[in-house]
């Protein structure tokens, strides 16, 4: 630290300009997590309102039998968009927004791990969502249900652009969600205050960690499915066409492999909110911290074994269904563990009936019912009756509204004093709660009966003699009550931002770090970072906020233009490194534009536009990656509060290392789904064996293996050499690594281009071509990265102490070798195994 003490105000004046988002056009260059998080949250609430309006249109149509309000074509767009908007454009972005806004504040960090990536994720989200909404306003919204079952969503039965809008728009948003998940995972694991071990980490962070890992594994199957369906629609391939060896059920497997984890991804952060609020509002600590962590992790894994329970009526044999039925009942156990932990906490403590607590009680009332109806539909014979009826509509709204929306509203009211810096003046919130609670139950409670009386989903009207009339009218009335309730919440929130009085510093007497500082939070969160010794740092040290503001923690200084936070050991929380963060830049926005061009080009069948988009995006990503690291070794330096730490480019466990591995995790999930699809089509789909199999070509196989494995071996050699200080040979070896992958990639590309039958002839050829394309794509990525490393070495960004570029590239070279080899072996081996 420099000589002479700096005052809190002085430190603020040094740090604020460094971390603050510029004004004017500069707002488009924001990377600060507080701004990005707020953007995600506000945008997601806008989409929630749009989804709510669509719900009102549905209820208006169903209020009476044979209503003339909307015809089937329009109605099909209403319900498709309602589901799509709520699930993809509201729920996931809201939880990612909460994570991005809150995690650095709760964990004692200055920003997220990859600020530019977060900004890029936001622009992709906004763009993808806009494609869907603009299409809807033009009357071209997708109209085959939010899960888009094939063959209805295939070209022959949905010839319009509507289905493509869904596939492109949703995939664009998924790219955003996956990018956000990578950033959140690394931030939670690495960017915490020194001393904050995993055991001392707030439960919300644990839940978000599990949720984002689920995103990394669970979203890629849908990305794959969407890519397959879009290619089938645009180029006539055969993945889902039973007349050409395809199978429409494959779409369902890929969709629900995503779709079931999706709802637990949505629930877990809400459970994290409850685990945060309940102890605080009951003036005690959570009962069973370890159990809650273990239960959340268990839910994360178990929920991947449920997906076929959405397919119980498709004709899968009973034993297959039974596996999933059993898993679907078992999953209630870790859920119950959490519920009982919360109940125990409330019984142990002294609950206060403040506004967030109303929503928590609402959660209990609604979610428990939803969970019970969920256990009912896990029973296969019962499911055979109520599947695809309004019973399911009732169930899903009970779990999603009870399990996500109500906790989110509780969290909204809890953290609003933090975000706005002001306190509530009017009692509007209580009125809104009752309207929401009563309105919701009036809409959906008797809907269980509506379904039991035989009303299916997705019907635009119904005859009067079915016995559904009165029930539907009550549901529609309830829907309008809810709409008023949510409108009141909006008014209430806006009023709170506009009205005068400042909030108390810690209005709930909470113990977690986000309350240790001025409200609204400054751009840098903490003037200096705390050394954490327990789970509730503010309870242990009520003066913590003042001491941190005065610079008594770590990094209580400004060093030029460097934006610093502490990186820690993932488990123990021991300080390891000073992480250097980028500041505001237009790069994320500029990179999102050609990304959008790529997607729009496919949507509008302007493929040159897509190609141009890819090229420009690639250049921008390389520029982005270039703006990292440093040109000389610095060694460990004083980081304040007694810490001496190296900067992150000189550390093995740098954030970028983990970001790369987590991205690879998502990629591996996609590849695994592709292999599953290949095996599934081969064994289950009708119309096999195909009329023509690929002729196994040992030259192509051998040369391809040589290329990808050789490339990886060269990369490994280069990395080891650089680490060991043998820097002379590195450049040449890097070029060899690139050459190997290019060669391997060409061999893979030759499969669909020359060796295999045409992909539109049979699903075998389609999936073979896709497998080869996957391999070739990764060879190209690995080659480009190796060449990038060559340039980095040339310009001095790499040294024996600074090997991050090489090690990250090695991950991708290894993956290209593994996936490329496996693809080649499967492509050439399968016809050989299948025999003549």
């Amino acid at each position, binding site marked *: 630290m420099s000589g002479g003490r700096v005052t809190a105000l002085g430190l603020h004046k040094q740090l604020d300009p460094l971390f603050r988002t510029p004004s004017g056009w500069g707002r488009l260059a924001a990377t600060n997590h507080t701004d990005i998080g707020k953007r995600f949250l506000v945008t997601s609430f806008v989409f929630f309102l749009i989804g709510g309006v669509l719900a009102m249109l549905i209820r208006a149509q169903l209020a009476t039998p044979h209503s003339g309000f909307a015809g089937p074509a329009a109605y099909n767009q209403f319900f498709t968009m309602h589901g799509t908007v709520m699930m993809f454009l509201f729920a996931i972005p809201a939880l990612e927004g909460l994570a991005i806004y809150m995690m650095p504040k709760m964990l004692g960090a200055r920003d997220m791990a990859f600020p530019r990536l977060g900004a890029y994720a936001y622009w992709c989200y906004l763009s993808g969502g806009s494609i869907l909404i603009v299409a809807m306003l033009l009357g071209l919204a997708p109209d085959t249900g939010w899960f888009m079952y094939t063959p209805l969503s295939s070209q022959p039965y949905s010839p319009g652009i509507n289905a493509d809008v869904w596939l492109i728009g949703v995939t664009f948003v998924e790219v955003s969600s996956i990018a956000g998940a990578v950033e959140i995972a690394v931030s939670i694991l690495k960017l915490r205050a020194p001393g904050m071990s995993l055991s001392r980490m707030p439960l919300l962070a644990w839940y978000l960690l599990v949720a984002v890992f689920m995103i990394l594994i669970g979203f890629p199957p849908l990305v794959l499915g969407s890519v397959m369906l879009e290619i089938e629609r645009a180029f006539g391939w055969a993945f889902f066409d039973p007349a050409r060896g395809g199978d429409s059920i494959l779409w369902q497997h890929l969709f629900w492999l995503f779709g079931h984890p999706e709802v637990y991804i949505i629930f877990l952060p809400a459970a994290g909110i409850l685990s945060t609020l309940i102890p605080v509002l009951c003036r005690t600590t959570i009962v069973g911290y370890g159990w809650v962590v273990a239960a959340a992790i268990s839910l994360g894994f178990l929920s991947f074994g449920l997906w076929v329970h959405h397919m119980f*009526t498709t004709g899968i044999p009973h034993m297959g269904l*039974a596996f999933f039925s059993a898993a679907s*009942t*078992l999953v209630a156990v870790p859920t119950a563990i959490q*519920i009982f*932990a919360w109940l125990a906490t409330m019984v142990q403590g002294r609950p206060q009936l403040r506004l967030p607590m109303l929503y928590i009680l609402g959660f209990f009332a609604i979610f428990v019912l939803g969970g*019970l109806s969920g256990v009912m539909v896990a029973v296969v014979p*019962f499911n*055979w009756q109520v599947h695809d009826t309004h019973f399911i509509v009732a169930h899903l709204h009970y779990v999603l509204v009870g399990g996500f929306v109500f906790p989110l509203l509780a969290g909204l009211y809890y953290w609003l004093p933090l975000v706005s810096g002001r306190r509530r003046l009017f009692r509007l919130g209580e009125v809104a709660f009752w309207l929401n609670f009563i309105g919701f139950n009036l809409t959906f409670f008797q809907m269980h009966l509506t379904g039991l009386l035989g009303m299916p989903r997705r019907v635009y009207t119904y005859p009067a003699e079915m016995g559904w009339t009165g029930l539907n009218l009550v549901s529609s009335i309830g829907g309008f009550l809810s709409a008023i309730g949510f409108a009141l919440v909006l008014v209430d929130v806006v009023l709170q931002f506009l009205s005068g009085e400042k909030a108390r510093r810690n209005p709930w007497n909470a113990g977690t770090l986000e309350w240790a500082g001025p409200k609204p939070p400054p751009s840098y969160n903490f003037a200096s970072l705390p050394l954490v010794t327990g789970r509730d740092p503010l309870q242990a040290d009520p003066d913590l906020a003042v001491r941190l503001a005065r610079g008594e923690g770590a990094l209580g200084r400004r060093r030029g233009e460097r934006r610093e936070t502490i990186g820690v050991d993932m488990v123990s929380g021991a300080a390891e490194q000073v992480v250097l963060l980028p500041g505001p830049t237009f790069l994320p926005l500029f990179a999102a534009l050609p990304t959008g061009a790529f997607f729009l080009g496919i949507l509008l069948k302007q493929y040159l536009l897509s190609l141009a988009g890819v090229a420009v995006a690639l250049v921008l990503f390389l520029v982005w990656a270039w703006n990292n690291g440093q040109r000389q070794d610095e060694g460990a330096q004083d980081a304040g509060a007694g810490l001496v730490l190296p900067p992150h480019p000189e550390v093995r466990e740098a954030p970028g290392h983990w970001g790369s591995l987590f991205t690879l995790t998502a990629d591996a999930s996609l590849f695994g789904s592709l292999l599953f699809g290949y095996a599934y089509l081969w064994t289950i789909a009708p*119309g096999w064996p195909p009329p023509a199999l690929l002729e196994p070509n040992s030259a192509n196989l051998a040369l391809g293996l040589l290329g990808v494995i050789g490339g990886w071996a060269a990369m490994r050699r280069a990395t080891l050499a650089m680490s060991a200080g043998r820097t002379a040979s590195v450049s040449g070896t890097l070029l060899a690594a690139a050459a190997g992958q290019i060669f391997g990639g060409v061999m893979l590309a030759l499969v669909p281009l020359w060796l295999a039958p045409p992909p539109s002839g049979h699903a075998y050829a389609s999936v073979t071509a896709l497998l080869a394309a996957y391999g070739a794509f990764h060879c190209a990525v690995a080659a480009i990265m190796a060449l990038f490393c060559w340039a980095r070495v040339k310009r001095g960004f790499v040294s024996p102490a600074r090997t991050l570029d090489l090690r990250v590239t090695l991950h991708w070279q290894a993956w290209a070798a593994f996936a490329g080899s496996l693809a080649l072996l499967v492509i050439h081996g399968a016809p050989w195994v299948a025999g003549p």
Partner: protein
Amino acid sequence: MLGGCAAPLSTLEPGGPSARAIAVLWWVMLAGAAAITALVAVLLALAWRRRHAASTVNAARWIVGGGLLFPLGVLGVLTAAALIVGERLLPHPAPEVVTVEARAHQFWWRFTHPDLGAGRAVTATELHIPAGRDVDVRITSADVIHSFWVPQLAGKLDAVPGFENVLRIRAAAPGRYQGRCAEFCGVGHAANVFTVVAHPPEEYAATLARLRSEAAPWPANCAACHADGTGAPGLAGVSARAWPPGHPLHALSGEALRAWVRLHAGPLTEAETEQAAALLEGGR
């Protein structure tokens, strides 16, 4: 069965053993759910009891007892019951099973009946089965995924193109049981309905023979598309049909019906329009 008139697609008014087993399961689960809801409500109320200072709870009793052992016990019983009932409802090989075929289309159903000596009768929108006998419905689709569902008789089973799924149904007594498509299949999904007509077993063969041999005098325009019953619904049995609720023809009569006929069939003479309308109204 009389109550079935009030809610013809109700799962809670079973007309056969399969639907009955499921309905019983439902009532038992409802009772269990109500009990668990009451338990949670009591526990929540416990949190608001008056006390003077914070207490400690026995974490193990709450979490292990309430969160682990209690659900495992209840769910174990439920899962076992679920799998046992599920096994019972499957179409296990059995003698004396009557087999029919159902082929789903956008937006109608084509039914092929067994050959009981008079050849295979093909109808649309009405499936004829013998009451009191196990019937296996072999279900497939001609286009997109649909689902065959007769709630009073059994659960539903999807009609998937390229596959054949088999559903076992059994009507306890003769009568008409409403059915419908239960998987969203496009703009006509709401109207994609059908009826299962269960006949006294001794009359079944005669019914099929009559369907097979019936030659109703349809105008040529109608027969052009509908005669073979493959690309469009066939005409066998239409003149005796009661259109199920939800079907486009269910509520049409008089001038509205004639208008529909003119719109649907293209150029017809006045007499042909009358002839078609009379045939379509015949079953009322």
